[in-house]
């Protein structure tokens, strides 16, 4: 595997296990002292959704497409913004309220590109990556509906 391929292989991960934000940031920075800015986003399970209590949240995905789709988003972020590293970790399976769902971390020389790339990846992930949430509530299980605001957020980056 070429060094480039090794780099890219570490960009995205889909896993049932939890992740450690500090460890992920440290691995992404890897002692690179060109880095001046690290922007990070963590999505977490809320205990209320559309007014109903949430007992568990189950994340289904499309194995085979998921990593490719996330990698395509990361590649596009690297093309658009002046960043050194981008890392996406997305969990699947059954989660509880307050659990971590997704991590996006970006390193750059400057904060503007780090913030932009981090937000870009989240906005695209929300509309392009094949994950689906199913909530268990006191009223029964239900699939989470996609939100128009997520489409609008991704649309803002079109050009």
């Amino acid at each position, binding site marked *: 595997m070429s060094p480039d391929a090794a780099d890219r292989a570490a960009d995205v991960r889909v896993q049932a296990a939890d992740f450690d934000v500090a460890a992920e940031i440290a691995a992404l920075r890897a002692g690179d002292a060109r880095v001046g800015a690290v922007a990070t986003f963590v999505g977490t399970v809320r205990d209320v959704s559309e007014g109903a209590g949430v007992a568990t949240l189950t994340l289904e995905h499309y194995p085979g*497409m998921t990593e490719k789709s996330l990698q395509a988003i990361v590649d596009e972020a690297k093309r658009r913004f002046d960043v050194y590293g981008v890392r996406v970790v997305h969990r699947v399976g059954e989660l509880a309220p307050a659990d971590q769902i*997704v991590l996006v971390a970006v390193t750059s020389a400057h904060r503007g590109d780090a913030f932009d790339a981090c937000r870009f990846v989240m906005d695209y992930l929300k509309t392009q990556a094949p994950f689906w949430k199913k909530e268990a509530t006191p009223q029964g299980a239900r699939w989470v509906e996609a939100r128009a605001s997520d489409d609008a957020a991704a649309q803002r980056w079109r050009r």
Partner: protein
Amino acid sequence: MRDSPPVVVRLVYLARLREALGSAGESLALPPGAPARVATVLETLRARGGAFAAELGPGRAVRVAVNHAMAQADDAVGEGDEVALFPPVTGG
């Protein structure tokens, strides 16, 4: 001159659609004749009626990926392609 054999695609149903259709996927032979497109797949399934017509009908948001890449209605599909049907994504 004989007709060419029909294009057969592998269908994958995901999330709410898998539950509503009661199936995780199947093989589907597309009608011979016109070039096969994503729209051909959807029309063929809708013609079955029942849950297929209801879930894939007008006003239902269905997303399609061909060989793991998001696809549009007029994108071509070919022999052996993996065609996934699913609701709008809700991860993150």
